[in-house]
């Protein structure tokens, strides 16, 4: 089923990575002054920007306010120039709505919403350049942005995708590997190992699920290490500036 050229004889993938290797990740926290929290991430050629406002008073319909916890409101959009062909509608299509819903579920699991009753937390993410793994980049950027806003979370949320080449699981699947069968997306709380979201886009044999899940989990933990370094660098930088 899977195309044989996904993995070369030497065990390398089309873009030169080894099966468990991630694409290069670069991230930065606190890119905007106006927002409560913001972050930018690059995973390979996928670039995402996340902005967090809140917790603040309910805007719009006040009836949506939850008496015991905060409402997490997510919006996902793709810049018109983010794909090879210019997009007509930057947001509001069905796919965007679905992704926003997934983001909301992911972050409701991670944010300690019960600390902010009757308020609202807005998470806006935008894809500036789409090159596979949009959801993952959004989750990772939003994690950093929420942290930048000082909103309490159980843990980081790290998301990564995995595919399969024959029996070898491939971490952080690139769009060229789209032919390579089913795609698994995992959002993980790495310290506790809890799964915030798991998405499987095609049929997969039960026996292979374990391996794919394990590969995605490994990738999430590797990503956690990268994001953690970004956060700590930022912490050090700001505490040094603030002094005592």
């Amino acid at each position: 089923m899977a195309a044989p050229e996904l993995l070369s004889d030497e065990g390398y993938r089309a873009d030169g990575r080894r099966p468990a290797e991630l694409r290069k990740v670069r991230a930065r926290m606190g890119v905007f002054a106006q927002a409560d929290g913001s972050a930018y991430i690059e995973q390979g050629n996928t670039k995402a920007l996340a902005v967090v406002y809140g917790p603040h008073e309910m805007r719009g319909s006040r009836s949506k306010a939850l008496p015991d916890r905060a409402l997490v409101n997510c919006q996902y959009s793709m810049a018109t120039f983010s794909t090879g062909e210019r997009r007509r509608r930057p947001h509001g299509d069905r796919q965007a709505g679905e992704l926003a819903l997934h983001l909301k579920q992911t972050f409701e699991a991670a944010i300690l919403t019960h600390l902010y009753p009757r308020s609202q937390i807005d998470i806006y993410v935008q894809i500036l350049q789409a090159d596979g793994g949009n959801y993952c980049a959004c989750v990772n950027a939003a994690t950093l942005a929420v942290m930048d806003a000082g909103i309490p979370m159980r843990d980081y949320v790290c998301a990564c995708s995995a595919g399969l080449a024959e029996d070898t699981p491939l971490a952080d699947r690139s769009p060229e590997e789209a032919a390579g069968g089913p795609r698994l997306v995992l959002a993980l709380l790495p310290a506790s190992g809890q799964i915030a979201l798991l998405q499987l886009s095609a049929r997969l044999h039960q026996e292979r699920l374990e391996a794919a899940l394990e590969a995605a989990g490994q990738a999430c933990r590797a990503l956690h290490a990268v994001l953690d370094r970004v956060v700590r660098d930022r912490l050090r930088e700001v505490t040094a500036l603030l002094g005592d």
Partner: protein
Amino acid sequence: MAAITMRLPVARKAVGPSASSRGGEKHLVAPGDTITTDTGYMRGHGTYVDEEKLIASVAGAVERVNKLVCVKALKTRYNGEVGDIVVGRITEVQQKRWKVETNSRLDSVLLLSSMNLPGGELRRRSAEDELAMRDYLQEGDLISAEVQSVFSDGAVSLHTRSLKYGKLGQGVLVQVSPSLVKRQKTHFHDLPCGASVILGNNGFIWIYPTPEQKDEEAGGFTTNLEPVPLSEREVISRLRNCIVALVTQKLMLFDTSILYCYEASLPHQIKDILKLELLLLIPFKQDLTCLFTVSSVQSSSVSRLPGIVHRGALNIASLQHPTERSAHEAGSDFIHICMDRNSAKRAAHSCFMGQQPGKVLGDQRRPSLPALHFIKGAGKKESSRHGGPHCNVFVEHEGPKKSCAVFSKDTERDPM
């Protein structure tokens, strides 16, 4: 056509190991990190307990008070405390109350009964008062108020039962992080430069022309709509830019720091304050922890100093000094003191705190240099507010060796 200035991207400096000046390494944590597995501790803000482990929920520094463990996030929204001075914006007029946006997690409330009626009348609020609420304050108005109480969900109740508080008229609002506003006895300052500021504990800063006389009759709910003269508007804009410059360097805001920055910015055009700061100081951002302002004039005089390659300028005005020996009298217009960054910071800190500076200077690595006292400029130019002469301190950066040059210069300009 308007001239456009562009800034070339500058490589970010790598952050070295945590350089906390006192008390050694700070315990920095990120969400999910286990702080302690000891069950004898109490759970404070920014932490939660899972399987008998105390785990951080925000990224920040751990603070321990006896058995209580908290994690203080770098920035959060405003958490109200009784007695705080806040500046806020009316978002809604409801029955018997206004809703006020104060950068808090929920909108604050200002009850009709917790404000002064015009004319200072004391009586129960009637239905007519309720109908006239929008005449006092309507949506979009800015007010200054004091926190009366904090509800269990974190919402804040305000009061304006003093002539100090009430509606704000003409001025400029700057929004900063609440953690950068220093808690002080008073947050209303009439600065000697000709404008006043309200430093709201919630990070809203209001800069306005100093009123000639307080209007007793109005009860704080009428505003003066006379045109503000250009000179005052310039002072206000300069103060605004100074505050923004201080905030970008993560420096605490209080009357003295703002005033020092203002005085140091005087040789420059208002619009250049931020530009210069961006152009010159971004490379020094990590190293410059004291109060600073850039000054091309000062930089040019410093360039006469041999061996100094790059510099960001610090201006610490009005240093009080125990000895009367000044650099100027000694025949030079600068003193070069090598010291590490932390002692520079401490010196600046102590001079802000009103302590005697000058004890921390000297260089351990170069004992041949005399441990000079903090210097002061010549002359007895009294700043109207902080008696004492001026001097400028420059931080010098030479690769890995961090040293600091202190540069004294008699400020010829009138302090005010």
